[in-house]
């Protein structure tokens, strides 16, 4: 079983979908419980995140690893349900690059990493109207991640927080902000709950707050 765990972890780090599928199949045949397989893959995904942050792996590699995990979950999901071991999602998160801003590479990376960490991510893309964030929160998202890459658009993050206050929703949602011009000091000033310098940092903080 130890070997299977190691193989699963390494297969995810190697980020090739067929390799991940083969490692999962082997582990299943060896009788490894679905929950343990997912945990081992999760360890691999954590390492992928570290390598990504260190510039040793890149977004397509992270996504390929995530795709491998996703395809494995198609097999493991029903098994988990049968065994009654199904873990619930950590939280529902609405993500988007704020209106007026089309830079969404960082936000997309963050969405993917949150997804891999077990969050239910509703990624609205870029140039997202303020109302769309609010609507998703009204529909049940308990976290809101807003990215802004320009000093002229970062103020929209503050606007959305103000609307949340006006509509009495602020206490129901954890607000995360990020993007090149955004700093911890700015996040504090506008009353955001989480500032992430990087996608990994945001994910770590989001996980910590959702323990």
């Amino acid at each position, binding site marked *: 079983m130890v070997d299977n765990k190691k193989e699963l972890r390494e297969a995810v780090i190697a980020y090739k979908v067929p390799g991940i599928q083969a490692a999962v199949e082997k582990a299943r045949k060896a009788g490894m419980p679905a929950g343990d397989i997912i945990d081992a893959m999760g360890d691999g995904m954590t390492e992928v995140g570290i390598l990504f942050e*260190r*510039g*040793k*792996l*890149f*977004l*397509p*590699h992270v*996504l*390929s690893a*995530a*795709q491998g995990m*996703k395809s494995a979950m198609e097999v493991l999901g029903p098994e988990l349900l049968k065994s009654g071991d199904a873990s619930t999602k950590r939280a529902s998160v609405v993500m988007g690059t704020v209106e007026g801003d*089309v830079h*969404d*590479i960082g936000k*997309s990376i963050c*969405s*993917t990493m949150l997804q891999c960490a077990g969050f239910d991510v509703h*990624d609205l*893309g870029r140039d997202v109207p303020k109302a769309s964030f609010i609507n998703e929160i009204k529909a049940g998202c308990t976290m809101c991640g807003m990215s802004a890459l*320009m*000093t*002229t658009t970062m103020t929209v993050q503050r606007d959305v927080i103000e609307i949340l206050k006006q509509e009495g929703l602020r206490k129901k949602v954890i607000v995360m902000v990020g993007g*090149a*011009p955004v*700093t*911890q*000091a*700015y996040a504090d000033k506008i009353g955001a709950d989480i500032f992430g*310098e990087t996608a990994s940092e945001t994910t770590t903080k989001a996980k910590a707050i959702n323990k």
Partner: protein
Amino acid sequence: MKGFYTRMGDGKRVIMTKEQIINDIHAGIADAADMAGVPDLKADEVDLLFEIISDKNRIVGVEPGKEVVLTYDIGQLDFTGDNGNSGNGIDVGRRESALLHERALGGDTFELAHADYSIKPVKPIISNEMQAMEEIQSEIIIPFFYGAMPNSGLYYAPDGPYGNPADLMREFKIEEAMQAAEFTAEHLARDIEYVSTRMVAAGADGFNFDTTASAGDADFVGTLKGVEMLRKACPKTYIMVGMAGESVMGIHGSIEYKGEVVAGKYPHQQVKLAEKAGANVFGPVVNTNTSKSLAWNMSRSVTFVKECIRVAKIPCHVNMGMGVGGIPMWETAPNDAVTRCNKAMVEIAKVDGV
């Protein structure tokens, strides 16, 4: 407890002790050395970094005789742009701006730029740009280039003909995303050739590629191929390649230039590719971490750049401004930090210009 007035990477004023500053200098050096596999700075260089940071004067400078070339990028936009665009919101014409940079601001070179500052939007107005170049060249004395960002983001949807890798990857269409990046690199190279050769024909003394690789590794490859084309068409023109960050983002992940994967390349590796393509000058860039101190950012930047200078066969003019080169990410970069980072780059990294 004796403290020294310094700053954080977001420009916030802080007081730090000698011990805190020294610790941050070591941490910044270690981070760069670890990330890029480059040597640590030496003990005397750490001492000099501390001396520069702890200097009681608000403005510092290099010793007489150690001055370096001062090149400006972004054209007139440093006057006309808004604060977020490195500008000052002053409406001034391109000719006036060029002459001000030459005659009032001490620029050793300057450049003409389009308001969007990207290659692609220049294509439909190339005649206007050529005309402006010719007119300003008749008055200006310093080398006067044309400058633009390769900005291959403009070739992806919704602004361009190719699928947007960010969208495609979100749908796990990884192969398609990679292919879109490859098409973009080729398209960008063709556009660079079109724009740059015409601007040189209009009298530009050279071409400055600014913020190269801002859209990732394919952006870098497209630019290097464009530089090659320009070099072939105009063997004597002056070509500057300035980067967007210390590491090339792998949006494609595997795209190569002359047999080398470019994703994840650091300044000392980027410069070798720029040399191969035919550049005359390389502009290393190191991004500032807003959560870390000036000491951390400055020492980290100098560590990356020092190795780049050591291996480079062409002159290197390091990018120093808002959010790069250790300078805080602040709309109007504080002069105490700006001058300290510049002094460190000149005296420790031994840059040829800024």
